[in-house]
């Protein structure tokens, strides 16, 4: 082969490789979607982020309007519009020598605690939680944020100690208000229960959206809106978690708030309270893998309110497992020898967390043995 032929061959090979790379790039799901930030983390919002708000998203994505009624969207209630605080205009509780009262006054609610002599009364600034389980309040006193010592619980429709708080008589009136929140605590609370309240490492309570909104999971929509207006494909300029692998989605993306492996060191000392942290629990399951068929969104549509009927989840299980068969042997993992419906009612039992007045679905999918100790 002479030199000219060699050079021509090299050019052809280079062109072919370049074309191949372009084709691969075009068919890479991340490129197809035109995602601007593969690593969007709902809790790590960059300092200069500008969110547009749900109303802009809903201009086009009308089918997701039901998202507003989902648990995530209602992770924080506006005090002025709070259904819980309106429906329960006067809540009281006594802890030793301290009396608590949460009283509604128009669009405001006041959290008061008295030792009989002195009283601290503070307006409730932020109401965390939608009331499915309960609601905890954040207050401000002498320049510090406090987590209320007592919370509202939906099941008894009354106040009780906030989960995690020591169930002891406070040592002082100030102590009775609740726990002083550190900068990390404040950041952690607001970054999961609100959208745009923490940017960079700065708390931005002057302008944020209550609850987990569209852009919390999808990132800021400005580039996407501009791109679509320019006629770019639908997925351009916006993050879509559906392109994450199963493990990335479950153990990182969703776990950034619902808690997964990164926080297991913390969880290991919490015993039964671990059941609240679904990514961590599901990781224990025999069927857990990087497959999206076992990831959070395989069963839960984050745009809709949570489905409570066990039958809804059966089809997810049946994607891998078969229905009850006479030949099935207990423990072979492929088919169930006992039942042919409502898989989760047996394999994902409800676990009562007394401190939360709530039965949580244990996402550690397993064959539950009668009388077994809660597998931590």
């Amino acid at each position: 082969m002479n030199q000219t032929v060699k050079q021509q061959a090299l050019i052809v090979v280079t062109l072919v490789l370049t074309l191949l790379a372009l084709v691969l790039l075009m068919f890479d799901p991340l490129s197809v979607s035109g995602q601007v930030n593969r690593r969007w983390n709902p809790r790590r919002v960059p300092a200069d982020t500008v969110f547009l708000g749900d109303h802009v998203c809903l201009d086009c994505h009308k089918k997701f309007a039901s998202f507003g009624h989902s648990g995530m969207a209602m992770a924080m209630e506006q005090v002025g519009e709070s259904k819980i605080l309106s429906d329960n205009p006067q809540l009281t509780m006594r802890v030793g020598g301290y009396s608590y009262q949460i009283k509604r006054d128009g669009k405001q609610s006041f959290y008061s605690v008295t030792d009989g002599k002195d009283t601290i009364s503070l307006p409730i600034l932020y109401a965390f939680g939608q009331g499915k389980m309960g609601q905890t309040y954040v207050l401000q006193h002498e320049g510090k944020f406090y987590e209320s010592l007592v919370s509202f619980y939906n099941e008894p429709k009354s106040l009780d100690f906030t989960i995690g708080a020591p169930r002891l008589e406070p040592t002082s009136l100030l102590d009775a208000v609740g726990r002083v929140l550190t900068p990390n605590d404040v950041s952690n609370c607001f970054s999961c229960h609100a959208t745009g309240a923490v940017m960079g490492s700065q708390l931005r309570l002057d302008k944020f959206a209550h609850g987990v909104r569209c852009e919390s999971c999808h990132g800021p929509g400005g580039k996407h809106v501009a791109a679509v207006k320019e006629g770019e494909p639908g997925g351009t300029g916006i993050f879509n978690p559906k392109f994450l692998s199963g493990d990335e989605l479950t153990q990182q993306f969703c776990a950034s708030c619902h808690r997964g492996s990164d926080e297991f060191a913390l969880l290991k000392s919490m015993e039964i309270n671990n059941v609240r942290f679904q990514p961590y629990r599901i990781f224990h399951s025999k069927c857990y893998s990087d497959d999206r068929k076992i990831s959070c969104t395989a069963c839960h549509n984050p745009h809709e309110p949570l489905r409570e009927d066990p039958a809804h989840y059966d089809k997810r299980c049946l994607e891998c497992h078969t229905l009850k068969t006479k030949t099935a042997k207990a423990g072979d993992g492929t088919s169930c020898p006992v039942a042919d419906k409502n898989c989760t009612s047996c394999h994902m039992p409800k676990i009562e967390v007394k401190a939360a007045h709530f039965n949580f679905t244990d996402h550690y999918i397993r064959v539950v043995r009668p009388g077994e100790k809660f597998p931590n």
Partner: protein
Amino acid sequence: MAPLILATPGLDQSISAQSPRKSRAKQPASQPRTVADSEFDRFVKLADDARLSDRLDEAISLYGQALKIKPKWPEGWWYVGAIFYQKDVYPQARDAFQNLVALEPQRGPAWAMLGLCQFQTGELERAAAALERSRSLGVNDHSELASVVRYHTALLYIRFEYFENAYEVLSEFTGVGNESAKIIEAFGLALLRMPLLPKEIPPPQREKILIAGRAGYSMAARRMEPARAAFDVLLARYPNDPNVHYPYGVYMLAQDSDLAMKEFKRELEISPLHYPAMVQMAFEYLKRDQYEDALPLAEKAAQLAPKLYAARNVLGRLLLEVGQVDRAVKELEEGVKLAPSSPEMHFALARAYTRAGRKQEAAREREIFKRLQDEYNQKKELVKPDAVPDQKPEKPSSSP
């Protein structure tokens, strides 16, 4: 001062609760008694009388006679070791307890006493191994012995630069609220990462160690205000000393991670090879998804401290996040080799295997993780606060 050893802890209760004479009755009734048996009984009786009358030299000699007849008599070795220990004759005490652990290798108190003797004779590595073994076997309900063992275990961890382990062990003392100078001093050494035994502390350093110890104790006891106050003093007086900003950073990490990161950076300005600060920063950057900032720190820490499993853990996890799955698996496998009993390591490795599609290995690691976690929880339930040593590790007393 309460005697450390009233009976023979760890020995079979059916034996230790009885007098040595009764304990000898364990031999089958059908077996005829020999002259040697009678002689043994006589020596034991005399030895017990001598011990109870505080005639310790005589007791040692008489127990020795009995042991010549029955060298596999555990109680005899216990008493001989305990008396030598009480008399500060540590080499002989060590030998006696060595014989005892050979006979009763599952007896935690015997390993405890052996370790304490080896500590005194300067066989520090052996002492550490024996004390660790006694802690894993347990020292029954003998709280004073448990407390002395805990203190010495912590000292040895400090001496061998396992400062985090030392801090963890010392933290067990906060349960009873004892803030004796010895404990505070040990906390100070651990916090300032000074691999010294108390007797080796240079006098000019003592003040700093005690301030740091106060901070460490308060931190372990979750008394945040006193901890903060002690750190304030420490930072004000020793702002340019190594290992001062690092523990303050660790203290602040759970409360104000931005401030903590500043402290770690300051520590690295003072001590550029401070790999624990690098690891802490890498973990925090990992948490913040700042992988590019985290990776160089994790790489350097793993290079500086190749045996530090935490460095492998953070490096492996970072590599997993940036898509270098194969390398992540290698780092995490190395970490598991370094710390096979760390649930964190198995958890991280399980995730890496999951991402690599190695399902069976992932499942295996998850199982190990769960088992270790259960063991951790069980151990946590077993750790009960007990007494702490006052001024010096107590001597075992052979008197009732």
